[in-house]
């Protein structure tokens, strides 16, 4: 009985528990409750993924109403995979969060932090599972509004301006998205994704549908911070509390990428917009620019959090580049990099959270000699950094390998060369941190520093080791990504 209700539980559980944390008010109790809820959603996600792999797409009709009229929840392979990523990252980050939040968030607001965290999780889960384009907008705004609040909880006053800027740009993105949905509704009279993908080919040549596609793409690209639309991201990641950065960097933009996949390959699946309307080339050009421009900017940053924020913009470029090949291996490379990047960025930002806890700051200067003073923390950060570069035996290598293969399959050898070249830029910015942490002497007047507490190191190393484990044995993740890419490209329908 309960088995059939699992898809809706993913949204309802965090949504219902969010106000409970508000009532609890006690920081410790709120944390415990949130911890239980996120691990529960992670467990459910895993069981849903198994179910999807075994017996195909799960469809859940809310209130028993049939599809085009009622809202349905649809979970296919891509959805289930992204859902596992989001809830997995959520539960690891939350396990880690208690000490870091106590230090970085004012004490009387800690319970609010957990309320917002649960709401954000609700929104992200809802986006992944819903099969209705307007419902998706609502969840998009739930997750966005709560992440503005999460960012503004940072102690630095610049967190406020960063959150405000994100609010303005995020709202513009979301509004563009509903304009697109409205235009699609005008032509088809439906909001259901499967229904839309069946009806759109008949009206695909109209100006209205083309305008809809343009609005949707630009709106979503704002949310996922594709290169020229990434301006909200660096400040938001830099000044948000470390836990928030670790969570948002590895989930929020990833889920936005998932939305792009859904719109381009599912809703517009029957039309082939990627090839037909040249969306492919635009995305490819922007992705390549992101890879180089953002990596170059990253090299010149002195705040390490900001450095990795720019590196995130570059990595999103790799994901979009994979999608823009519109081939099975390309899309699979995009999906697998989505997973891999989530793992390594989560590890890196959690490591930086440990540094903030002990040192109080994360500039390159703060990092001097830190490799000797906090060996476990720095070890994990360096592992994450190596993965960003794409050293063999790390997850980063798997995704780059598939990206290069996808490029060569399409005979775009120059893009393969560019992928390798841009990785060299990652070598430079990661090296700056390694140099500061291991080769620079410890500052003379430095206060003695302890290693981060075990409650933070453990989740950190789970993520760091995961980035090695999935690099050595990528068969599972790869087969899911390939299956998912295959399903998206052929049939396209959910």
């Amino acid at each position: 009985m309960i088995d059939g209700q699992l898809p809706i539980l993913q949204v309802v559980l965090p949504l219902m528990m969010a106000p409970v944390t508000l009532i609890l008010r006690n920081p410790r109790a709120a944390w415990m409750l949130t911890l239980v809820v996120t691990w529960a959603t992670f467990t459910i996600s895993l069981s849903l993924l198994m179910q999807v792999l075994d017996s195909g797409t799960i469809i859940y009709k809310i209130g028993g109403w049939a599809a085009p009229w009622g809202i349905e929840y649809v979970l296919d392979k891509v959805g289930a995979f992204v859902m596992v990523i989001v809830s997995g990252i959520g539960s690891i980050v939350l396990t880690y969060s208690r000490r870091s939040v106590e230090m970085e968030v004012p004490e009387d607001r800690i319970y609010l932090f957990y309320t917002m965290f649960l709401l954000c999780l609700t929104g992200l889960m809802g986006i992944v599972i819903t099969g209705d384009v307007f419902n998706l907008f609502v969840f998009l705004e739930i997750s966005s509004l709560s992440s503005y609040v999460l960012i503004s909880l940072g102690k630095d006053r610049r967190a406020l301006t960063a959150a405000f800027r994100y609010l303005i740009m995020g709202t513009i993105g979301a509004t563009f998205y509903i304009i697109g949905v409205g235009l699609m509704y005008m032509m088809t009279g439906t909001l259901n994704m499967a229904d839309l993908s069946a009806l759109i080919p008949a009206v695909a040549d109209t100006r209205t549908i083309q305008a809809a596609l343009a609005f949707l793409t630009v709106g979503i690209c704002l949310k996922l911070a594709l290169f020229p639309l990434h301006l909200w991201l660096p400040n938001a990641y830099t000044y948000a509390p470390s836990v928030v950065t670790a969570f948002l960097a590895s989930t929020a933009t990833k889920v936005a990428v998932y939305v792009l996949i859904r719109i381009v390959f599912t809703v517009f699946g029957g039309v082939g917009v990627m090839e037909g309307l040249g969306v492919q080339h635009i995305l490819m050009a922007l992705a390549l620019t992101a890879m180089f421009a953002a990596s170059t900017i990253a090299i010149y940053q002195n705040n390490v959090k900001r450095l990795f924020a720019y590196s995130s913009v570059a990595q999103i470029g790799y994901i979009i580049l994979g999608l823009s090949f519109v081939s099975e291996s390309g899309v699979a490379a995009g999906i697998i990099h989505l997973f891999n990047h989530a793992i390594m960025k989560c590890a890196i930002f959690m490591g930086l959270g440990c540094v903030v806890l002990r040192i109080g700051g994360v500039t390159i200067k703060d990092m001097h000699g830190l490799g000797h003073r906090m060996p476990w923390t720095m070890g994990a950060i360096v592992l994450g950094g190596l993965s960003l570069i794409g050293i063999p035996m790390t997850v980063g290598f798997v995704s780059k390998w598939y990206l290069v293969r996808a490029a060569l399959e399409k005979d775009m050898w120059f893009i393969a060369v560019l992928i390798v070249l841009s990785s060299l830029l990652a070598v430079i910015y990661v090296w700056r941190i390694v140099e500061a942490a291991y080769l620079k002497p410890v500052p003379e007047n430095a206060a003695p520093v302890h290693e981060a507490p075990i409650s933070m190191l453990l989740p950190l190393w789970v993520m760091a080791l995961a980035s090695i484990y999935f690099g050595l044995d990528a068969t599972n993740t790869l087969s899911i990504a390939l299956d998912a890419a295959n399903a998206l490209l052929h049939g396209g329908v959910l």
Partner: protein
Amino acid sequence: MDAFSGLFNYWIVVVLMMMGFYIVISQQNLIKKIVGLNVFQVSVFVFYISMGKIKGGSAPILADGIEIYSNPLPHVLILTAIVVGVATTALGLALTVRIKNAYGTIEEDEIEAMENTPSNKTPEATS
């Protein structure tokens, strides 16, 4: 049908949309930015509402002698969007209050100037 009078509702939508968008981009004052954002969102509300209206259609309530009804769905959708818009505005205004407390100003150029002068620069992640 004439390109202007036949589509005048869309003209209003586009004009409002561009006005709002321009205000968001060009204004330095944070409150004015939020107002611009509201105008921008309202244009989308008008767009949805006028989309559901059918010429000669009545309100979608079953009654004798009425054959044509307007489509209620876009109207319902936009109720949700209005709620989202209100929440966004509230949050934006709350952030503006906090920014005013932290910086003493809500002019974006003045805030930027404060951030860029080294003397006022707060160290990274002050506690």
